[in-house]
């Protein structure tokens, strides 16, 4: 009898000891490790070729991918425009392509300018046919690239701006030299020609950085179209485009308001 119970104890102990490795593995499963995975069978996991954005000792800058040679364009950077008008090619459109192109039209699409008597002038229209799909694409791109600062409605109060205001309130030095982004629905932007807005997206203005590398050419124009749509939906109209009687009334109103503001400041 005694011997039998002893045996049972031994078996139970061995059984429990057998569970220990499982417990350890289970712990390891739920722990973050900073070391790379442990490949038991290597197969051909690591092959002597370069994947995108991998380091290489071959070049001085340590990159396997080579930068653009100045003055050249990558294939996907070409804007293909038809002789007379820019026509969006349905298949490649998502990639930011348009169909090819006389140099004149190409330049006007790329720089947002047209040549008048040898001088560049900002385009006053969007050089790509406006469709619902195009403006909707503008919305998705706007919500990706512009929303962080300018907000979904374009009034200049996106999450990044709100966060900076909070840092400022707390007196944190991290608030830095941030300047609140401009209100896209204000008259400041409504007055700008389409080509100029395009140029701001492409090359930046003030503290706003250039988005040339992040947004392809056609998408920049799509964003311009969406900014215009936002203005329309929020009924922001440049004063010059208002009907005459309203314009004069507005003028007198602003004069009055300005006078009031000045009086208050003095007192």
């Amino acid at each position, binding site marked *: 009898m005694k011997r039998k119970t002893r045996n049972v104890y031994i078996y139970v102990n061995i059984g429990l000891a*057998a569970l220990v*490795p*499982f417990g350890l*593995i289970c712990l*390891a*499963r*739920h*722990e*973050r*490790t*900073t*070391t*790379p*995975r*442990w*490949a*038991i069978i290597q*197969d*051909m*996991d*690591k*092959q002597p*070729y370069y*994947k*995108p*954005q991998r*380091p290489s000792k071959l070049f001085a*800058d*340590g*990159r396997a991918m080579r930068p653009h040679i100045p003055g050249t364009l990558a294939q*996907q950077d070409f804007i293909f425009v038809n002789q007379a008008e820019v026509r969006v090619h349905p298949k490649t459109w*998502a*990639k*930011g392509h348009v169909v090819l192109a006389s140099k004149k039209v190409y330049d006007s699409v790329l720089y947002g300018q047209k040549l008048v008597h040898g001088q560049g002038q900002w385009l006053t229209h969007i050089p790509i046919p406006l469709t619902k799909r195009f403006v909707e694409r503008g919305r*998705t791109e706007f*919500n*990706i*690239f512009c*929303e*962080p*600062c300018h907000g979904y409605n374009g009034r200049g109060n996106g*999450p*990044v701006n709100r*966060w*900076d205001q909070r*840092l400022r309130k707390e007196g944190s*030095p*991290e*608030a*830095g*030299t*941030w*300047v609140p982004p401009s209100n896209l629905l204000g008259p400041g932007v409504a007055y700008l020609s389409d080509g100029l807005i395009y140029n701001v997206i492409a090359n930046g203005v003030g*503290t706003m*950085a*250039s*988005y040339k*590398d*992040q*947004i392809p050419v056609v998408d920049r124009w799509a964003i311009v179209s969406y900014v215009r749509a936002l203005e329309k939906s929020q009924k922001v109209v440049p004063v010059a485009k208002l009907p005459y009687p309203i314009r004069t009334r507005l003028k007198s109103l602003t004069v009055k308001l300005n006078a009031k503001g000045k009086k208050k400041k003095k007192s």
Partner: protein
Amino acid sequence: MSERPFFVFPKWSDWLTKVIVISTLIIPVYLVILIAYGCSARTLNVNYAPKQPVPYSHAFHAGKLGINCEYCHTDVKRAAYAALPPTQTCLNCHSLIAAKSRKLQAIRNSYGTGKKSLAGMSVPWIKVDDLPDYVYFNHEAHVNAGISCLVCHGKVNEMTRVYQAKPFNMAWCLNCHRNPAPYLRPRNEVTNLNWTGKNKVKLAKDLGLTVATLPHNLGKYLLKRYHIPSVKLLTDCETCHH
């Protein structure tokens, strides 16, 4: 007359049966289970979270601020590779906000405003979700077919330090390639990692439908709408190992 048998196992040899049973049945079965569990892709690959040169928090930027994945990984919808952003993208904001933060030293080095010897060099980010070199995964194909970032990368918007969330072994890939329908969602919700699809009004808007005409089975509907190839093609060797 009873003859003595030729050979009789002595009584003490009873323990041999135990040894044989244990060594031929229990121990091998135990080892097989242990190795299968310990060396499974889920155990080995998941939760790899290397320390990055910059303690960039996706939980803050993508989660709290709600910046879209595509703001930095711009190429994901038009290239096979969802590129890491250039240093300039960080500086869109960080040239103004927290510009002098100690955490951003590697960024400043790369941009040329820090250590002179490192100017123009890439920030040495460490790749987390890495596939074997004989698999050719295409981001463009998946994202434009309505496969969310979430399916492979997990809830990145809740990760302070990015870790590998999925095992990335072939069986796991095939799990979806054999039956893609339940993983699909409208294309414009691909980068929305909190998407549930329960908001019918929003869903209808995403698909350009009305609530009344919403398909009963969203997966099957999207399968047709996004022209997802047949399972036969999806599970062909050449689809991934070309």
